[in-house]
């Protein structure tokens, strides 16, 4: 008993050792649960791996074919990048001001607004799809009704054509995750000492100026988190286009309008049974995300040092 207590004290009071102990659960769990699937996927990507059975080593063929014979991969990359900007990153432009507004004690009913804005994140997919079906239906939908009757323009074929499909997915993504990002920023705002604003107000800074000079710089760690999450989530976008475009019945809708990298990965793996090719996409995607998040990290570091 005493030996354990003594050891406990030894670790407990050791400032050098403590952080390793604190992060160790992650590595223990990663070794047990994370490493095998990742290693397995690397293995698969080098073989002609089918859903059932392995047809042998193919070297890098699963990778090279993506950039040579494959008719879909290029489109998937372009779609994903477009949706990344219009769907995932755009949200932060809305989420930060919204967080600041509902965080202000002067706004009456801010707790209610907060909950209402967060609702899309927890609304069931079934209801979401039904509603979006109603809103975006090209004959009976609310949006086309407004476009035709209020704006006097021709209705848009929201889910039927390649371009509009991307607009639909972007709107759906913004709708679904703005509240989620707002909540992340709300938490970040709690860490900013109130005194800073009071001091700035005394110096004669207006509200907008205060937020530009205090809120944004101090929110950088959280912005980095939010944007990283959006970059990763945006490159791995799957659910929304998949549900909207009929899942495996099409290859990302007419003209591959909504085919994202992850959607294509799942088609190759689960629909076509080509696990090796799917795994190769997973690794290409991994390196793309790694590069983009690294750039994001470097930019953030520079901003933070200023």
């Amino acid at each position, binding site marked *: 008993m005493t030996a354990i207590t003594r050891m406990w004290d030894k670790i407990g009071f050791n400032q050098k050792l403590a952080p390793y102990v*604190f992060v160790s659960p992650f590595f223990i769990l990663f070794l047990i649960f994370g490493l095998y699937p990742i290693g397995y996927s690397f293995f698969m990507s080098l073989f002609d791996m089918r859903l059932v059975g392995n047809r042998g080593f193919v070297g890098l063929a699963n990778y090279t074919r993506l950039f040579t014979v494959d008719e879909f991969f290029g489109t998937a990359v372009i779609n994903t990048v477009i949706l990344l900007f219009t769907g995932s990153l755009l949200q932060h432009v809305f989420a930060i001001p919204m967080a600041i507004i509902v965080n202000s004690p002067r706004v009456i009913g801010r707790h209610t607004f907060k909950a*209402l804005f967060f609702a899309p994140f927890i609304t069931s997919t*079934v209801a979401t799809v039904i509603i979006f079906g109603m809103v975006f239906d090209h004959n009976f939908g609310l949006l086309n009704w407004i476009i035709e009757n209020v704006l006097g323009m021709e209705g848009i074929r929201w889910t039927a054509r390649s371009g509009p499909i991307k607009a639909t997915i972007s709107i759906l993504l913004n709708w679904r995750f703005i509240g989620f990002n707002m909540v992340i920023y709300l938490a970040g705002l709690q860490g900013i000492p109130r005194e800073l604003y009071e001091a700035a107000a005394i110096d004669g800074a207006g509200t907008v100026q205060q937020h530009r000079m205090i809120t944004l710089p101090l929110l950088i760690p959280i912005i980095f*988190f939010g944007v990283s999450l959006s970059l990763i989530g945006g490159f791995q976008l799957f659910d929304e286009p998949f549900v909207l475009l009929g899942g495996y019945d099409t290859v990302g809708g007419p003209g591959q309008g909504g085919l994202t990298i992850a959607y294509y990965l799942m088609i190759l793996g689960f629909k076509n049974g080509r696990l090796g090719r799917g795994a190769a996409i997973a690794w290409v995607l991994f390196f793309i995300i790694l590069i983009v998040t690294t750039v994001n990290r470097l930019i953030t570091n520079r901003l933070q040092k200023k």
Partner: protein
Amino acid sequence: MKKMSISAPEAVKTGALYASLAGLAFVFFFPFYYMFIIASHPRETMFRTPPNLWFGGALWDNVHRLIFVQEQVPFLVNYANSVMIAVLTVVTTLFFCTMGGFALAKYDFRGKKFIFVFILSTMAFPPFLNIIPFYRMMVAFGWINRWRALIVPGMANAMGIFLMRQYMEESIPNALLDAARIDGLNEFGILTRVAFPLAKPGMGVLAIITFVGSWNNFLGAFILLPRLQSTTLTVALNTLNAVSFGEFGMVYAGTAIAILPLLVIFFLASRQFISGLTSGSVKG
């Protein structure tokens, strides 16, 4: 007179602010509201055009059939399972992720940068095909039909550690930690007695994200917990939808009452943890 001329644009601004907040709230909340509209209609009037905008009279009937009449899925058992699994996931995730995040935010140690980047990198790996080897592993461990299969692997997840690190980096002053050390607290004590209370807003957000993620996880629960008695609400509702043969009212009622607690929990949790600058959380 002068006062009037200042307050008039001020009033317009306030009006515009609330109008846009209300407009946004409507757009964001309507589908959630609509879930209950669907749930309150009998099958015959459920999908009318133009769509129903107000509650039908069948909500109680739908709920009644769901809970007391149908025998295809043990709805209340699944409900309890979902609550238990979500709560256990949240508690363990909060503990391990805050701990990990704290180390990366507030300690200097060799390999810190590498460890942080490594953790970030694991997030970048697309998880889509992992389900196949992961399933194999769960079978080998004998964890099929055990809740731990859903809880343990993600207890110390990269996203949570990342979030908590980012949150604590700016919001916990180093001076406070040093003061605690001088007071004789060991590092574990500092973690639980200083870091945890100060990280409340971050933990609040992590709790909400984790709870929602656990609650809505379908494929994982369906594959890892195949037994109807031990599985979750999401799986049970999917099964019910399949086997009840067109009893949409009952299924949608189940969906609605499955989601409602999430909003309530969010409302309470956000009030408690991430509301306004009232708690005097941090003294710079």
